């Protein structure tokens, strides 16, 4: 049982701090219940801390803007009356939020720093697949939106590599 719990904890922990946190939790093990309670509390805080360390607020804002702009343009190009819907602008924010959340988590779980171009590209594609799966807008809008987002996010990534980290 303990091995299973440790394996679950290993999956949940970001790779950058997995080794030491698992070792510390192992060393402090007294009972299964104590391990579960401590692991849950510790892993939550470690993830939040890791996200804080790997997230640049300026980049998050630029990504959010790029994603929303992409889906907005896609809705305009896709035609139809979708943009005239009462909740259209909020619906367009859903795939953006899903993609942004995935991109943030993907950065936190990255195994290398700085990330390889392939790993970052894979992260972008998976984030947009999750956005596509949200089905918050008509299919054509979602498809065009993901395509435009992929282009803009790739451009942002290229710029990101040439500028120093803020904060």
């Amino acid at each position, binding site marked *: 049982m303990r091995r299973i719990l440790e394996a679950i904890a290993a999956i949940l922990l970001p790779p950058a*701090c997995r080794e030491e946190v698992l*070792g510390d939790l192992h060393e402090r093990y007294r009972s299964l219940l104590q391990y579960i309670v401590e692991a849950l509390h510790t892993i939550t*805080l470690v993830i*939040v801390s890791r996200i804080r360390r790997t997230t640049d607020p300026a980049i998050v804002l630029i990504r959010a803007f790029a994603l929303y702009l992409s889906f907005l343009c896609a809705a305009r190009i896709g035609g139809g009356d979708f943009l005239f819907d009462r909740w259209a602008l909020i619906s367009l924010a859903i795939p953006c939020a899903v993609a942004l959340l995935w991109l943030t988590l993907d950065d936190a779980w990255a195994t290398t720093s700085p990330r390889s171009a392939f790993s970052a590209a894979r992260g972008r594609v998976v984030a947009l697949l999750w956005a596509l799966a949200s089905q918050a807008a008509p299919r054509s809008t979602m498809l065009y939106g993901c395509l435009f987002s992929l282009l803009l996010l790739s451009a942002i990534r290229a710029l990101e590599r040439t500028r120093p980290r803020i904060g």
Partner: protein
Amino acid sequence: MAKADSLGQFEQLVLTAILTLRDDAYGVTIHAKVQELAAPREVSLGAVYVTLDRLEDKGMVTSWLTDPTPERGGRAKRCYKLEALGERALEESAVTAKRIWDQIAEVWGKEWARQWGKRWVKERG
């Protein structure tokens, strides 16, 4: 010389723990020492990690991974060392705390300070 940031109380506790533990400062021992310093307040292991990350980002501590050991399930330790910036920040905090203590003792009286000191020594055994 870079100016040291002012420290929060929990950061002071973590830096003090690293300072006193010297070569044996890693997650578990730092947590135990912080718990001892913060008593009777309960301190979580996660809060210690968050603070260590923040202190490392500020350049006050540095860390490195040791070799894996069997008592840790074959996992390595992340050891921490105080940097000059951290030492300076801790020194400034200690000086400020001493000034506060002196002012309180002056207002509330020397007898109160003596009694408080005796109670503190008794509580800590």
